[in-house]
């Protein structure tokens, strides 16, 4: 049953991607740990963390593509789920610091001591356990997405309206997390982590471990998403995207389908956020900003929405470009990003993968169900 499910989901593109990931999972550890520091093959810890960051973004992009590319829900609030997962992990890492903080308090994180808090707020309990934090990484975004989606889809909010309220959601969360009395470190967020699962978080071995974990998470997320979109459920999702009310007349409760994809996607985003935080070493409320959500959308658009491999490709390419630009020509980065938004929507509605397929003259291929460029509506 499961194998059939898997076989159905994995096409050629998935094979290529998984192979690349497998190579990375072997090569990066070797290059980072075994190659001597002066060899041209050596990877610095910094580079490993950077690569890990790209892959976290790729997982976020896959999650976003699942709802935007396949269900037509343009979420401008996925950064919220990403950040919530990140905060859950951050809370675990804060608790791991224990008495090693600046103030040396046995339980309270530094910022709470600083704010004269007497005891741990109730929602910080349990985060000293990794399993609990890991559960929350998935559960918190999942429950929020479920509640939000339940209301939104049931009342048939669609299109730009939905996009705008997803943005309002993440905006409200950002304001909330900026508040000191929320108990999440306010403006500064959570940082100064020391160990994860007992390992020194700065050690190259830990960095490599986190990178490999990210590769595994991305591979798993990608596989799961491909299986979902390849199943009949995936076909229903695409049908919902193209002609939702027609699907209802066939007897499908489209709200449930959307809710399924939406919640699954939020959980994946949460996992991506959780892996991101230990690798960059900080999580703060700016992760909730509208800009981060919309940037994730452009990764998907660049790679080609409605193709999961495109989402991965787009996330890696755009973020590589961002790293390059912000180091070399910081003034120009926002122009480049802004231009990218305009150019992709005007000239590359199907993204790079769409372009590649067009060049090869065999669009649409396999399972790549790119959306119609025009926002036509059924019925």
């Amino acid at each position, binding site marked *: 049953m499961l194998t059939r499910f898997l076989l159905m989901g994995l096409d050629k593109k998935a094979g290529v991607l998984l192979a690349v990931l497998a190579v990375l999972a072997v090569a990066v550890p070797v290059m980072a740990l075994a190659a001597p520091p002066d060899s041209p093959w050596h990877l610095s810890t910094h580079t490993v963390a950077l690569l890990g960051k790209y892959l976290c973004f790729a997982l976020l992009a896959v999650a976003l593509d699942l709802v935007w590319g396949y269900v037509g829900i343009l979420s401008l609030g996925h950064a919220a789920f990403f950040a919530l997962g990140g905060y859950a992990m951050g809370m675990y890492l804060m608790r791991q610091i224990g008495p090693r903080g600046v103030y040396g308090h046995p339980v309270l994180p530094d910022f709470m001591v600083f704010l004269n808090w007497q005891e741990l707020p109730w929602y910080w309990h349990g985060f000293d356990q990794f399993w609990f934090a890991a559960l929350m990484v998935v559960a918190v975004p999942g429950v929020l997405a479920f509640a939000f989606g339940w209301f939104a889809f049931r*009342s048939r909010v669609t*299109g730009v309206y939905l996009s705008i309220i997803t943005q309002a959601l993440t905006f*409200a969360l950002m304001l909330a997390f900026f508040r000191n009395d929320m108990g999440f470190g306010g403006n500064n967020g959570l940082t100064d982590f020391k160990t994860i699962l007992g390992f020194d978080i700065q050690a190259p071995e830990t960095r490599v471990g986190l990178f490999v974990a990210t590769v595994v998470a991305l591979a798993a997320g990608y596989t799961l998403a491909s299986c979902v979109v390849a199943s009949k459920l995936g076909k229903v999702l695409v049908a919902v995207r193209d002609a939702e009310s027609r699907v209802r007349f066939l007897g499908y409760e489209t709200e449930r389908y959307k809710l399924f994809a939406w919640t699954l996607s939020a959980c994946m985003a949460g996992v991506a956020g959780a892996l991101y935080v230990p690798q960059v070493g900080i999580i703060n409320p700016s992760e909730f900003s509208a800009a981060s959500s919309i940037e994730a959308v452009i990764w998907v658009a660049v790679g080609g929405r409605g193709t999961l491999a495109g989402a991965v490709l787009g996330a890696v390419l755009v973020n590589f470009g961002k790293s390059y630009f912000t180091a070399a020509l910081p003034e120009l980065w926002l122009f480049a990003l802004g231009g990218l938004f305009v150019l992709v929507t005007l000239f590359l509605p199907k993204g790079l993968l769409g372009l590649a397929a067009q060049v090869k003259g065999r669009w649409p291929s396999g399972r790549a169900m790119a959306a119609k460029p025009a926002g036509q509506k059924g019925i």
Partner: protein
Amino acid sequence: MHRVLSWLLAALIAVATPAFAADLDPLVRALGTGTYADTEKALAKLAETGDTAAVPVIEALQTGDLHVRKADGAVVVARKAGNGVALTDPLTGAALGEADRSAVEKIKINNSLRRSISAALGALTLMSPNPQTRRQAADAVFKSRDVNALEALDTALAKETDEGVRRAMFQARAAVVLNSSAPDADKIAAVETLKARGDRDALALLNAAANSGGAEVKAVAERAIASVEQRLALWGAAQNLWYGLSLGSVLLLAAIGLAVTFGVMGVINMAHGEMVMIGAYATFLVQEVFRTFAPGLFDLSILVALPVAFLASGAVGVAIERSVIRWLYGRPLETLLATWGLSLALQQAVRSIFGPTNREVGAPSWMSGAFELGGLTITYGRLWIVVFAFLVFAALLVALRKTAFGLNIRAVTQNRSMASAMGIRTARVDALTFGLGSGIAGLAGVALSQIDNVSPNLGQGYIIDSFMVVVFGGVGNLWGTLVGALALGSVNKFLEPYAGAVLGKILVLIFIILFIQRRPRGLFALKGRAVEA
């Protein structure tokens, strides 16, 4: 008229002062001779003259600046300057050169003297021919509640003719009475006076009276407190309403342009906030020009900035429509992304040109200051913005309903192909409509430059709020936008006292999120097939 007269009076007095000075001189000299008791006597004589020219002398005595010059026994004001002290004449303020510190001796004062001083000061200023001074003196007594001032107050009251000053003196008297050991009947009368005043200061005094006076006073005071509190709550609500109206008008300004581009045309323009920002920077530039070339006409700069901002933002809007948006009609989500990209680029462009920091935009004199209306404080700046928002709204309404251009807009947005078949140049109408919406955003920028920081991020702060207003009010319905803006503004301001600004905002956002789910098409929804299409 009144004002002019009082100025004239003040000027006359200033001219007449030297004549009095001669008479005062010996009295001032007497201050510096002998014991505390002597000084006190001299002070009383000085106060008796009722001559306000003595006020600076007594003030100097109070602050400890009054000295006797040892050489000739003259009384002078000596203030520290360099190594020595600078001497001035206490009556005329004329400089008398510098001297060594040991050349003068301070006229010391004790507690009893200190009280006399403030009584004398109060009496003198209460008698001042300038009503403003008298009023300030009365207010000072109200604050100090100095029992010594009672006599002076009564004297002054007997002579007072100005209604406003009289009231202030009455209230000051009431405050003093409550602080004294006057009989209960007097205190009750005082309570009534304070009740009529009915502000926070009065409330504090009444509270004190309720805790200290006799049983009867206590009862009356408590009733007075209740009545004042009620009144204050009422004014508080009114103030909140005004703040709400004020915030609502800001939201309205930011959202009207969006109501055109998003509401009428269905184009979702994420760069709308940047149109506002461009308007604000246009204001800045216009003001710079005025500052350099015609500083005297600075008060007019805002009026000139209005058309400039409208044209600047409008032109950028037309350019955006022609180059990007027109390729994306019917694809709202793509439009959203492309215009978001434009907003990033515009922000960065402004940052590169004007720098990332706030630019200084000044307020013309007719927009600064405030006035009181009952218990309300209303700033002119806010008042003008409210008026302006409603003017823009009305103008747009008329433009859309009554002009040929408005008719064309409605025709094109309702049935593009039909409109084009009837000879309307739809592309032109599209561009101009978008320009209109953007231009209005520019106007909003002029207004916002008066109350917000003019920085490249100016627009970002308004974009989500504007969308909320338009969506909440109902897309495609200008009246909905008006109601939406005012409602959200007031709700925000009424929540603020309880929840704090940030939490209030979050609550409003959550409310809107829930509201949109109930009524996805907003407060004033359009119905029918046209909506579904």
